[in-house]
Structures are given as structure tokens and as C-alpha cells.
């Protein structure tokens, strides 16, 4: 795509675009210290994140969600394929330009401790991105106050150390740090997994109102399907380093196209005891290794619908309906429904 090098991409470009992106981690300790084996954490993923949307990313532990997220701000370099931010190839961006691109993104992790320095007052952690941009003194303080106001933190917390804050306050402080430079994209990696229900609700509400107020785009990673549905416009489902399905949130819940999505939905407790007897799709066994993933469709050893072709050819991610992508040889024949009754 020659336009990738255009200086100013037209606004119709997706904010984020992955083209067959790969991230393989070499495993050391081979015979001669060579590393011929790899963990295929992200394996040929193509997707987009549109401006102003929340793209939810789900999948089980080790499916590559965090690795994919780290490719976007260039915290990891892709082993293959391309990662474009606003039309610019992150891998070909360096120095000041990369810095300017990264300023347009914020990241919030599951563990707030990873973005708050335990040895300094919270103010220093929140202000840190401003320091790096050379914003100091009164202007810096003004923006710190404006930002903590946005995340509903009181001024009194600024002089406290992280351990003197509750889990919810710590996560608000990390969100403040992530948005202080007025980013367009915020990557949220399991931002509420460590929090209690009532605190989780506060943070989810906060994220939604921030999105409305300052038109943020979110990449929201979680393994909780109720949360991802509540937060997302579109949802991507990962299995074994690959994106197996992408769909609008409601459509995905109403009728999943991929057997793995159906299994994930069946296994997720729906917060309603009346749905206990819902129809379920179960997977046999554990996920296989990312080092030597099975040939063909990665799910075939566990898939209740697998046929011969599934172990022979990798199903491509194809457009199955408007705004819907799926990577399964049999999606057209299957009518999957995880719902009440049965």
C-alpha cells in the first residue's frame, strides 16, 4: 500500500491498522545457543480500530492480547507484517517522530502499580508524561489538576504514595497519567480485573464518560465477556495468536460465527441464574502450545465441528457479513447460538 508513507493520512483512515502483523518470541537454549524455535504470540493478525470506537479484545490467557496491544505504540517491534498508526508504519518511525506518535496514545495496565512509582507521591507519576514532553512548572500543575478532576480524584491524593491509595484510586491515577497528554487512543489492558464489583463499576463509568467528553478511542482488553459487551462497539476474539472473529458486540453475543467464540460465550457465567441451562458448546482439552501450533485451524484438535480440511488448511479471516469477520472453514454451515433454553 503506497499511501502508507503519505505525510498526512486522510481522516478516513482507521486510527490503527494491523496488516498480517506477527510477533514471534525466540526461545533460547537450543543446541548451540541458536534459537530456531519461537513462541508465536501474534500470528498474522489483520484488523483495524476506527476513530472514536471501543474495540474489545477477548481471548484466553496466553492468546496474545497483551502482545498485540504492545505492538501498537511500538513497545514491541513486529517480527513481520505492518502496524500502522494513523497511516504511519510504526516500525519505520523513529526518534522525535515516534515520540510524537506515542504521545497520541495512552496505556493503562491491570496492575496500577506498574504505572505508578511506589517511591514517589502520586503527583509525580501522573505528571511524568508532561516532564518527558518538557512541560513544567505552573502549566504542568494546571494540567495535573485538570486531569485528576476528569478522573474524579480529589487533590488530597496527589501528595500520597501509591500504597496509601485504594485499588480504585490507584487505577484512576493510572488513567489520569494515560490521558494527561490528551491522547486519541487509550489502550486498556484488563483495567478492572483486580478490582471489586463496585469499584469496577466506577472505573467503567468513568471510562465511558471520558470517551464521550474527549472522544477517545479505546482498545479494551479483558477476559470478562460481560464487561467487554458493556464497553465495546466491536469485539475481536483471539485464539492461539490469531484473530478468529471480529463482530459488533451485540451481534457477537446473539450469534457467534466461530466455534471458539461460542465456547467462550458458553463458558462465561452470564450473571443470571436463569441462564444456567443455556445451550453450551464445550471444548475438549487444553489450548495447544504456541511454539508448535497445530497445522490448519488452531482449534481443530478441540473443535466439536472439525472435519478433515480443518487439520489441513488454515482458514483465512473472511468477511462473513456486514462488519463481521470470521476464520473458520465451516462457519456458513454452522448455526451457533448460546442462549436461554435448550
Amino acid at each position, binding site marked *: 500500500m503506497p499511501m502508507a508513507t503519505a505525510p498526512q493520512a486522510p481522516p478516513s483512515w482507521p486510527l490503527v491498522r494491523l496488516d498480517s502483523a506477527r510477533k514471534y518470541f525466540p526461545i533460547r537454549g537450543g543446541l548451540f545457543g541458536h534459537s530456531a524455535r519461537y513462541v508465536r504470540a501474534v500470528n498474522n493478525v489483520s484488523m483495524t480500530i476506527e476513530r472514536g470506537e*471501543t474495540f474489545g479484545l477477548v481471548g*484466553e*490467557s496466553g492468546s496474545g492480547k497483551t502482545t498485540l496491544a504492545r505492538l501498537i505504540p511500538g513497545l514491541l517491534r513486529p517480527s513481520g507484517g505492518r502496524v500502522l498508526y494513523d497511516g504511519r508504519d510504526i516500525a519505520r518511525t523513529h526518534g522525535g517522530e515516534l515520540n510524537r506518535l506515542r504521545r497520541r496514545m495512552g496505556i493503562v495496565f491491570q496492575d496500577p502499580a506498574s504505572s505508578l512509582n511506589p517511591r514517589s507521591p502520586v503527583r509525580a507519576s501522573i505528571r511524568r508524561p508532561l516532564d518527558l514532553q518538557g512541560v513544567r512548572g505552573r502549566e504542568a500543575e494546571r494540567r495535573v489538576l485538570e486531569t485528576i478532576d476528569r478522573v474524579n480524584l480529589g487533590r488530597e491524593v496527589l501528595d500520597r504514595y501509591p500504597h496509601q491509595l*485504594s485499588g480504585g484510586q490507584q487505577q484512576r491515577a493510572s488513567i489520569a497519567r494515560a490521558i494527561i497528554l490528551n491522547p486519541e487512543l487509550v489502550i486498556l489492558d484488563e483495567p478492572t480485573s483486580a478490582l*471489586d*464489583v*463496585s469499584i*469496577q*463499576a*466506577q472505573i*467503567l*463509568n468513568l471510562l*465511558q464518560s471520558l470517551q464521550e467528553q474527549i472522544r477517545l478511542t479505546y482498545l479494551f482488553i479483558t*477476559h470478562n*465477556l*460481560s*464487561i467487554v*459487551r*458493556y*464497553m*465495546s*462497539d466491536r469485539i475481536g476474539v483471539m485464539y492461539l495468536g490469531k484473530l478468529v472473529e471480529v463482530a459488533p*458486540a*451485540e451481534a457477537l*453475543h446473539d450469534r457467534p460465527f466461530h466455534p471458539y467464540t461460542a*465456547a*467462550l460465550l*458458553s*463458558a*462465561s*457465567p*452470564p*450473571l*443470571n*441464574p*436463569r*441462564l*444456567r441451562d443455556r445451550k*453450551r458448546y*464445550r*471444548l475438549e*482439552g*487444553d489450548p495447544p502450545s504456541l511454539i508448535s501450533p497445530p497445522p490448519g485451524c488452531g482449534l481443530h484438535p478441540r473443535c466439536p465441528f472439525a472435519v478433515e480440511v480443518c487439520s489441513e488448511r488454515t482458514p483465512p479471516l473472511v468477511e462473513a457479513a456486514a462488519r463481521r469477520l470470521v476464520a473458520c472453514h465451516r462457519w456458513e454451515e454452522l448455526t451457533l447460538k448460546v442462549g436461554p433454553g435448550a
Partner: protein
Amino acid sequence: MKVMAAPPETAILQVDDLSVCFETSRGSVQAVSGVSFAMAKGEVYALVGESGCGKSTTALAVMRLVPPPGRIRRGHIRLGDEDLLALSDEAMADVRGRRLAMIFQNPLVSLNPVYRAGSQIEEAISLDSVPRPVAWRRAIEVLGRVRIGDPAERALRYPHELSGGMRQRVMTGMMISRTPDLLIADEPTTALDVTIQARILDLLMDLCSHSGMALLIITHDLGIVAEIADRVGVMYAGSLVEQAPVYELYEDPLHPYTRMLMRALPRLGKGQGRLETIPGSVPDLIALPAGCAFHPRCPERLAICASQTPVSRVVGGGRTVACHRGEVDR
């Protein structure tokens, strides 16, 4: 007519007015304050509530394993016809081996680091004087049942060679290898992926319905509760504020705290409404507010709530609630 939550004659576990505190340099932490509940044979009872509300401490008290500086200040705990708090340490150890079992929140605590995973299960099985080779074979079978891939090989591993999720599954295997009367499972699936979690929950439910084992499951995940519990007890700041059969709890919660908790759950899609939040924060268990511990945060509080502790009352349909609201009009 008063309806008991579980009639005492069929109760396998009966906890009455249990209070546990931790004596610390800052003061006495009231971790559990006057908790009473009963469980029937084969029943799945879920104890829920937010972090620090006393769920694990309640369970540890039933096991008589509250660590120092904690102590049971008051109350009675009966398992069948045994008065657990009156037993000698030896007799209690025997009850723990045979009739009671617990899957701990941190699975490394109860797996012995110097024994192979399989040996620990084999050990539990051979308590029933099953010959060793048979016990070993059964241990491997159990590992398969808790969804450990390649169980014969994994049985030979030491705990530190297994992932957190696998250790948790080994623990689960150990506990179900001999069916106890009561299994206490403290957050048994927290480190696990949902598809594996679903398997473990299926397995536990299966044991309850087929062997009559009672399961006390402790969790803050209201999805898990909706999935497997028969009855639920909701804890707040050391007290059991409400008990109800699972359907009633989700559809018609009575205590203001439970009501708010239910509305804080994300059950809808994007743009279909905000989640309810609970103002304020949980109280310090060293200096609990007077009256109802929830009153400073409660939108429905009455004048009496700030001075008098509401007692748990039976409201029919196997439900209890500890709230001044409705004391007169219900």
C-alpha cells in the same frame, strides 16, 4: 410462620453467631461479626462480598485454621453432630482429614512443595486404606478429571514446576479424590481461564448432586454464583447482611447493599445505561461505624440505622436480611 434457611435436622453445617477478630498493634480487627448460616447435605452455598469482608476468615474458622493473631471470639460451629469448637486438636485434625476439606485461595499454601503432585493426591486416597498402586492410578485419573493434560506425566511434577492454574487444579483434585461431607472452596477458579473454570465448576456440581457433598464456595464473582449456587450469603464488613436462594437474590435483592451490588454489574450492552456505583468506601474493621455497618453509604438509611445494629431476620422463602428498612412494614 418462620422458615429456617436450612432445617437443623438436615443441616450438615451449622454456624451460629460466629465472631472472629485479629488483634493487631493498631487495634482489634473485627473480621467476622456474628455470622450465622446453615447448609444442607448436597447443597451449594455461596459466600459473596467484596475484598476484605471476611469470607476467607469465616471459612478458616470452620476449618479451625484461623491464623494468629486471629481468634474465634464467639460462636458455635457444628458439622453434622460434631461440635467443632469443642473438639481436641487431634480430633479436629481427624475431621479435617475425613469429613471436611478446603481448597485454599492461594494453592501453594496447601500443596506440599517437597512432594510430587501425584503423590499428594495418592496420599489423600490411601487414607481410606486403598493400596498404593491403586491409589496412584486413581490419582492420575483424578488429575484427568480436573482437566490436567497428560496427567501421568504431570503427576510426577513438583508444585513449583506447575503453573498457578495447574496447582489450583491439583488442589481441587486432592480435595475431591475422597468425597468429604463438606468441601470449602475459596476462590477455586480465580487464576483459571473461563473454559477451564467452567469444567471445574461442572465437576464440583457433579460431586454435589451425585455424592451428597455440600459445597461452600467463596467468591467475589457474581457470575460464578449465578452459575452454581443454590443459596447465597452476602457479606459486608464482617456481617452476613442477606441470605437467599439464588434466583430470589438476583431478581429481588432485599438488602440495600445487595441491591446496589446487583446494579453495579455490567449486564447490558454499550450505551444501554450507566452502572450503579456505591458512594464512599468500605469501613475500617478496627473502627466499625455504630449501628448498621453499611449506614454511612446507604441511600435508604433511617435515623435508627446510625445507632442500632440490625439483627438478621427471617423473611420467609428461606431468606434472611439484616436491615432496619422493612422491619415494620414487612
